[in-house]
């Protein structure tokens, strides 16, 4: 009796599997997964290239080719209708494609800054380094495209495991190993929270598919205590990744100890990937949590901005500034919950998040990238003291840095300003005016430290003996910095053009 049921079910499962195989080979799924596949194949190729004699010359080719292929395929997906492939486990839409594009561009920029940064050191491990970077980027793409919790979890780990090792990449240095270890321990802790939450949600509902969960959560499942606890634990796990209060304490240490190009990747990619999942999965939190989420967002902004005010190490200051920015994007989550999960509001929130993260990508990559360039002159260049009078020695670098600081601070005519404006407009539309005012006030505090960097660079005299050392600026890094400057200005002056692309 049991045997016959099992045979029947096995037969049914085989038919379903057959259907899914057809789905794969029909090309729909393969095309949908291309941004991911290009990077995964690139990462595997990198392992091969690394062991053949003379393969080191091919390394840049593999990195650039796979990142550009991924970006190109993602670009082509923008504007196409949303669809689900592989039995609903992977979703493609304009939003996921735009996120994939952000990740590929961000990784490419971070890699280019790495060329000069690693010059003459750690060369024997560059193959591993690039392979891990490609793999982490592939993980980000999988995270935003995930149609169920399992795929998201796998994406999260494909992203996190490489980043733990990359954080500890300068392994002769105590601070780098410490950064890797702290990142790993807290990351594994957060992953366990995510998993236990997912397991509880599964116990309450019997599925891990997001679309099925979304329809089940319309009903009474949403009230079951197991589902509520599960949702809270799962969200806590993801909140760690986006570094919101009270899960933000690891960020400054990890960002400071990691190699600067890797910090760039963490600051822009990881956060955007986690937000790309948080917004579609926001239904896992009950509307009653609006107040808590808004409070978390405001506390995150406060913690980030107040923490940054007292820093003298600029890399650490930018880490705190990243926390504050995560808080601003968290406000979007509060908007979605306040609307009761209305799908129009969610789409608009998704666009706002995308815009904000794209602006943050250019700004933050540029700022961290310039720090990576300056760091070659010596580690003191990472401190406020080292930046004294930079404008006299390197007007171009100081000028670009000034623009990035203005954009981070949200000064009009920059991408950062438009991103903030978009988020606060959503809040006002949802009648959360008190939250909007508090958020705007907290953003003003941030100007305190951004302006301090600008003043240090332009108005203070040179430190002693600073004139002599001038490490040459590499051409690729200059080009990427130029692109970041252009990105910040285009997003600030012509935001409509970019939003039009998303529809």
């Amino acid at each position: 009796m049991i045997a016959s049921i099992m045979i029947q079910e096995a037969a049914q499962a085989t038919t379903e599997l057959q259907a899914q195989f057809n789905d794969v080979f029909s090309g729909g799924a393969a095309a949908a997964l291309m941004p991911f596949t290009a990077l995964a194949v690139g990462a595997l190729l990198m392992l091969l290239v690394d062991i053949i004699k003379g393969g080191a010359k091919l390394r840049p080719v593999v990195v650039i080719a796979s990142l550009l292929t991924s970006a190109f395929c993602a670009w082509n997906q923008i504007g196409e209708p949303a669809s689900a492939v592989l039995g609903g486990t992977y979703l493609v839409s304009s939003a996921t494609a735009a996120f994939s594009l952000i990740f590929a561009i961000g990784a490419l920029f971070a890699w280019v800054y790495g060329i000069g940064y690693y010059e003459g050191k750690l060369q024997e491990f560059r193959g591993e380094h690039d392979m891990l970077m490609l793999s982490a980027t592939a993980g980000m793409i999988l995270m935003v495209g995930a149609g169920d919790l399992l795929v998201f979890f796998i994406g999260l780990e494909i992203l996190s495991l490489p980043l733990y090792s990359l954080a500890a990449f300068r392994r002769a240095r105590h601070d780098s190993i410490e950064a890797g270890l702290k990142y790993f321990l807290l990351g594994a802790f957060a992953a366990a929270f995510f998993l236990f939450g997912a397991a509880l949600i599964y116990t309450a509902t019997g599925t891990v598919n997001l679309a099925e969960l979304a329809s089940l959560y319309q009903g009474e499942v949403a009230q079951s205590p197991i589902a509520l606890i599960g949702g809270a634990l799962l969200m806590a796990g993801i909140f760690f990744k986006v570094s919101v209060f009270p899960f933000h304490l690891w960020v400054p240490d990890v960002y400071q100890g990691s190699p600067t190009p890797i910090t760039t990747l963490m600051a822009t990619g990881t956060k955007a990937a986690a937000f790309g999942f948080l917004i579609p999965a926001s239904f896992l939190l009950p509307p009653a949590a609006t107040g808590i989420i808004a409070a978390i967002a405001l506390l995150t902004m406060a913690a980030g901005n107040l923490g940054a005010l007292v820093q003298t190490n600029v890399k650490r200051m930018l880490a705190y500034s990243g926390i504050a920015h995560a808080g601003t994007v968290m406000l979007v989550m509060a908007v979605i919950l306040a609307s009761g999960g209305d799908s129009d509001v969610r789409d608009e929130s998704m666009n706002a998040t995308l815009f904000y993260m794209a602006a943050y990508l250019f700004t933050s990559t540029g700022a961290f990238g310039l720090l990576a360039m300056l760091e070659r002159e010596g580690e003191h260049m990472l401190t406020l003291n080292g930046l004294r009078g930079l404008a006299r020695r390197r007007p171009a670098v100081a000028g670009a840095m000034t623009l990035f600081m203005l954009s981070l601070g949200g000064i009009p005519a920059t991408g950062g300003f438009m991103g903030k404006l978009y988020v606060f407009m959503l809040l006002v539309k949802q009648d959360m005016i008190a939250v909007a005012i508090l958020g705007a006030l907290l953003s003003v505090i941030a100007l305190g430290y951004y302006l301090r960097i600008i003043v240090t660079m332009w108005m203070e005299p040179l430190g002693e003996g600073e004139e002599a050392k001038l490490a040459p600026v590499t051409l690729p890094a200059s080009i990427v910095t130029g692109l970041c400057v252009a990105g910040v200005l285009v997003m600030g002056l012509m935001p409509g053009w970019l939003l039009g692309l998303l529809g």
Partner: protein
Amino acid sequence: MNVPTEHLLILAGILFSLGALGFLLRSNLIVILASVELMLNAANLTFLAGARSHSSVGPLNLDGPIFALFVILVAACEAALGLALVIAFYRQKQSVDIEAAAELKG
């Protein structure tokens, strides 16, 4: 004899809390790694308990066991990477105590 699902969930909750407490209170890195494993296994137990309770009232539900298999895989990767980091840390500090990680602060 059939253990009710609630009991399994309570057991998993206890295991998870023990793991979390171990993570937060102990300072030996090896014990901390073991605590994380305990938390992951609490999740696995929950997945299997959920799969059993859903399969007993409806069609066979394999999402949970498959999830648990992937968790075991990832836990192995995490353990490998974690121990590698702990070894690198030990080489520098001659200690596996988390208190020794105090270079970065402020």
